[in-house]
């Protein structure tokens, strides 16, 4: 069980990430997003392509410099300029798994060296033997065998490569892992293997995940809490249970109704709810955070809130 009274591991407050495209045009990829992740928790970020979910991941791990907002990780402020010590800790304790395991593994390096690179940079071993042992142990943990250390990425299948990606993140013993669409490129049966592996690792090491994906059914399986993102705004957040049984925001509802169920008779009759921001009359900039119950929050105006809450009984 996750202790929601504890100090959050990651606290993102009013994060804004703008990209200046030209003198007159700025893309507001992430606009005023706040959320918390607790130790040992999995937080799922969902939304369509272009909603800013990957940008949040990259801003949090400081691949980008956030435009505004405050990010606190494990008690230290990691927004703005970081001190050398802070940066060093961040680079060890927060790791990332990328979507395409072929593009994110150096094709000219052996698996062992790819996994060991982080250890080399941070001088995390005292002897060559210790380095080897650490790599072997991590390979076994992700379901590969130690002999794989001397092979190259192209010699592996897609599922195995993603295991290498996980091993590389895990070898630094991180407190938090950002998984950016890490199963989207895999086959269904392989997806299940990787998701199960990530769950096992979490049970063992107690690390937290920020799980970014557009496949809601997989997010439901792995996440404790979910945040729904659209056009750079966090519209609704709550436990998986709360989001799936009582979605309040019309966008969340349309998203949930679009998941095809493997039940042909039901599926052939069912129509997904449509949602169009332009014609819905909703202005995301007007919305403020409303507390539904428990950890369930929705961003909207007061009138919208009253209207939507009445509708939730019908959903």
């Amino acid at each position, binding site marked *: 069980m996750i202790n929601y009274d504890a100090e959050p591991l990651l606290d993102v407050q009013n994060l804004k990430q703008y990209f200046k495209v030209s003198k007159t045009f700025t893309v507001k990829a992430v606009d005023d997003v706040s959320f918390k992740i607790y130790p040992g928790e999995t937080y799922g970020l969902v939304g369509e392509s272009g909603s800013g979910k990957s940008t949040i991941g990259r801003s949090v791990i400081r691949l980008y410099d956030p435009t505004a907002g405050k990010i606190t990780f494990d008690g230290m402020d990691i927004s703005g300029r970081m001190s050398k010590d802070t940066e060093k800790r961040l680079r060890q304790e927060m790791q990332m798994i990328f979507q395409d395991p072929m593009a994110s593994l150096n094709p000219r390096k052996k698996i062992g060296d790819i996994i060991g690179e982080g250890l080399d940079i941070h001088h995390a071993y005292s002897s060559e033997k210790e380095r080897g042992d650490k790599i072997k142990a991590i390979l076994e943990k992700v379901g590969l065998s130690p002999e794989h250390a001397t092979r190259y990425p192209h010699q592996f299948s897609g599922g195995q490569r993603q295991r290498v990606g996980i091993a590389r993140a895990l070898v630094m013993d991180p407190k938090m892992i950002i998984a950016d669409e890490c199963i989207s490129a895999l086959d269904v049966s392989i997806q*299940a293997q990787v998701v199960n592996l990530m769950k096992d690792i979490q049970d063992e090491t107690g690390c937290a995940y920020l799980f970014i994906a557009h496949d809601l059914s997989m997010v439901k399986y792995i996440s404790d809490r979910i945040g729904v993102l659209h056009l750079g705004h966090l519209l609704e957040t709550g436990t998986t249970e709360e989001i799936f049984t009582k979605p309040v925001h019309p966008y969340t509802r349309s998203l949930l109704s679009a998941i095809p169920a493997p039940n042909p008779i039901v599926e052939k009759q069912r129509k997904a709810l449509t949602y169009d921001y332009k014609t819905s009359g909703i202005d995301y900039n007007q919305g403020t955070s409303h507390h539904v119950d428990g950890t369930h929050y929705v961003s909207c105006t007061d009138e919208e809130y009253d209207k939507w809450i009445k509708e939730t009984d019908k959903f």
Partner: protein
Amino acid sequence: MSDEEKKIEETPAAEEAKAAVVSEETEPEDDRDIILDIKDLDITFKTSAGPVHAIRGVNIRLHRGETVAIVGESGSGKSVTMKAAMGILAKNAIVNSGKIRFSYKHLETGEPDTVDILKQDKKWIRSHINGRRIAMVFQDPMTSLDPTMPIGKQIMEGMMWHYNTPKEEAYNKAKKLLEEVGIEDAEKRMKNYPHQLSGGMRQRVVIAIALSCDPDLLICDEPTTALDVTIQARIIELIRRIQKERGISVIYITHDLGVVAKVADYVNVMYAGRIVEKGTINEIYYDPRHPYTWGLLSAMPDLDTDDDRLYTIPGSPPNLLHEKPGDAFAPRNRYALVVDEKADPPMFKITDTHYAATWLLDPRAPKVEMPPELKARIERMKKEAESVDD
């Protein structure tokens, strides 16, 4: 099941069993309009590492207006089969046997005609079949569009090449197609380049191109895998609408069983180059017989339960470079019998439309039921379906 029980399956030799089984050859001929008939297709690829036996006796039949889904993991041969049907196999492919009969109406005379795609030369196929009679929608709309050409021109290209349509007429047709696939401001969009469109819009453009020459058959190779759920729902809706309006046949290649449930009339489950189970959509989803189909259905995340572990099919697909005797799925099959190691199971007939290639269906095999979790899930699905029917 104990080892003793497993042994009873030693007796049937492959020949004997084949005789006992109603093979697909006797599948009743019906008078419905057959558009594509793939028979005993067998393909090997020559590679530097040795021959790869990629397709091992595939039979698929498709009638006019129907949708057939082909489901399977990557490397199971779904795409190779479809490439063969379009006559665009790679140069190192050797067709060992098989027929791909494609029926169409002559453009000028309206006379029906049937050709064997495998016997035609590439040039003829390029000008008579590809794009014109059979069109294909690929997974990634960014790589299947030309980044240096406005989308309007890309839609017009096919019509002008295949039918010598005058430029002005092609332009008007292209504009109408863009409207048909749900793109607003078609006139303006014609001049846009692919990078100016979103992923969902690009896929709409690809569909417009596929439809531009009025094909009889549309092959969709993972058309929505790269898109998110809301866009996916809209694209599927679009393909379904167009299919109904134009009466074309569609083949769907996908590994998403949720999508299949929405679109397909018939399902073919492929594994390691052969079809292991085929049937109507309801037969496959509510009465699956092959252990691999059981695995696929179980691995689908279930939104209605709170199990916190996903079912996985153990192991990984076989390397077709090293062909082994027996059932290719046996090493991953926890219901495997001794005979599975020795002989590849034939297609056993369950109903007129439902076939499965597993020794479990042999009358001499021990009775094995699908996993209880899946059974419970199917019961729940059936109940849900009843409430929809009312």
